[in-house]
């Protein structure tokens, strides 16, 4: 594997509060490799933003170490800043200026000449579909348009790694889907992306690899597929026309190596298998041979929420209502 672009070692950051310290980041170890989209999934208050702020030199960790593109965030903040792009939770676009002005200023702050900055701005405006509104004052942008500008600002100077903090929070489904496309384009451009989200679908769709965070700790890490394998497996539910052959079915399923677990009651079969989409046709064929009449059949694959549930005992959807937006 190539050298990691982001490496952290036992990062910790506690914030003082009246009821004792808030362990915002509590021993985080992770690695992000070149060209991948790395997702950071966790409920509000999990410590995602604080971790990102430590990695982008905005906040100092209490202990532990982190390097970005080989530079230490504490000792070499200047080099780190030159190598990263950062789009914070709040965005970052300057509202009283036009999108293009924002981009050119951003490029200039990274030491581009005016000419270089103008060319790069034009390039990004075309690539990220900003043309229609790039020369309007950002005050007039919709939420989705602002977010696209924010992302463009983040990659203006071709950073080695782009940090996106909750890029689609507050967007409607259509704009969210649109931004996912734009973020997908970053992968094609070869940008390494480190994004945080509390949306399961987003982490699942976008990330090549992801870490699930809760209470300042990473509770699971891997590709979305690997993570879901931590959970029991896929579940195939079968509705039968009648229950006369239940005993035979049980005997049959018990012999099949791909069946991990199953239950039969009345006209209802629940079969847990490794890879449901492969097993399903085979099962149907088997039922056909044995003249077992099937009324319905559905496949449920595990979600990242099942993974979160397994690791923390809570579901992400539950924590959603509990934790308010903070930080």
């Amino acid at each position, binding site marked *: 594997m190539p050298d990691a672009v982001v490496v952290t070692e036992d990062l910790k950051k506690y914030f003082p509060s009246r009821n004792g310290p808030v362990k915002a980041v509590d021993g985080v170890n992770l690695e992000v490799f070149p060209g991948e989209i790395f997702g950071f999934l966790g409920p509000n208050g999990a410590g995602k933003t604080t971790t990102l702020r430590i990695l*982008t030199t*905005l906040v100092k960790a209490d202990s532990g170490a982190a390097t970005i593109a080989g530079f230490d965030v504490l000792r070499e903040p200047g080099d780190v800043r030159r190598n990263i792009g950062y789009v914070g939770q*709040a965005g970052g*676009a300057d509202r009283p200026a036009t999108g293009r002005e924002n981009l050119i200023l951003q490029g200039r702050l990274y030491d581009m000449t005016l000419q270089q900055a103008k060319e790069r701005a034009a390039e990004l405006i075309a690539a990220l579909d900003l043309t229609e509104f790039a020369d309007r004052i950002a005050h007039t942008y919709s939420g989705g348009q602002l977010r696209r500008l924010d992302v463009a600002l983040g990659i203006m100077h071709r950073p080695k790694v782009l940090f996106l903090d909750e890029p689609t929070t507050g967007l409607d489904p259509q704009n969210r889907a649109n931004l996912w496309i734009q973020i997908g384009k970053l992968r094609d451009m070869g940008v390494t992306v480190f994004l945080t989200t509390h949306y399961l679908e987003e982490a699942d769709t976008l990330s090549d690899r992801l870490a699930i965070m809760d209470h300042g700790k990473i509770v699971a890490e891997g590709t979305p597929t690997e993570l879901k394998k931590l959970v029991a497996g896929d579940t195939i539910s079968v509705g039968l026309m009648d229950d006369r052959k239940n005993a035979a079915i049980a005997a049959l399923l018990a012999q099949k190596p791909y069946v991990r677990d199953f239950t039969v009651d009345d006209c209802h079969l629940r079969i847990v298998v490794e890879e449901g989409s492969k097993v399903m046709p085979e099962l149907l064929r088997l039922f056909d041979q044995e003249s077992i009449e099937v009324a319905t059949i559905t496949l449920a694959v595990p979600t990242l929420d099942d993974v979160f549930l397994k690791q923390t005992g809570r579901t992400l959807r539950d924590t959603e209502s509990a934790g308010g937006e903070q930080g």
Partner: protein
Amino acid sequence: MKLLRDIGLLYKRKLMETLRNPIYIVMSMLTPVLYLILFSPLLNKLVGTGGTRSVLDLFVPGLLVIVAFFNGLFVGYGIIDEIRNGVIERFRATPTSRFAILAGPVLRDTTNVLVIVTLFTLVSVPFGFRPDPVGWLVLLVIISMLIITTASFGYALGLILKEEDRLSPIVQGVNLPILLLSGVLLPMELAPTWLQVLAHFNPVYYSVEAARVLCAGTIWDAKVGYAFLFMVPLTVLVVAWATRAVRSVVA
């Protein structure tokens, strides 16, 4: 040099904001002009003109100083907006120096104040204000230091407090005593001793005193010396403190 270039870039960003919304300059003129028209006639009766000098020669220099003070104090609201929109955090994640992030806006505010002060001086001339040109130019230096100090102070407050509701009481709490103890509305000579002593802790008081003698044409005066003696270190201190606030702000 990167630092100077970045200051220039960030200055231009804020200047564009003013140029797109020049109404701000007009609004800022409103308060001093109202004082000039509705308040200075009162002084005429109270103080008496005392020879050939117009009472405006006493009153307008102080107003010029107060304009600088006001414009600086309220900038905190603007930066709270920028913190909320993530602008400050975005700049902090770039290799730009923290000082440039402060200096750009502060220099824009200084420009605004110098424009307002010049316009207001011109408006006051037909009313009878006759400042000494050289003294007036020296006054601009003192005024620049004052606006740099108060704007930096305002930004630092905004960065530290992060919310309008927390900023307002402090801004108001600073504003009124400084104004009352500045001797702008009425000369501090009319005040009892304890009030005069208190006034000597007020940077605006020194600037107002210096402004009066400068506009009267006396440049080598102890009051001018005191103003510089007080304002130079204060400016350095407050700017350093505000730069630290930019460095350590967590949005």
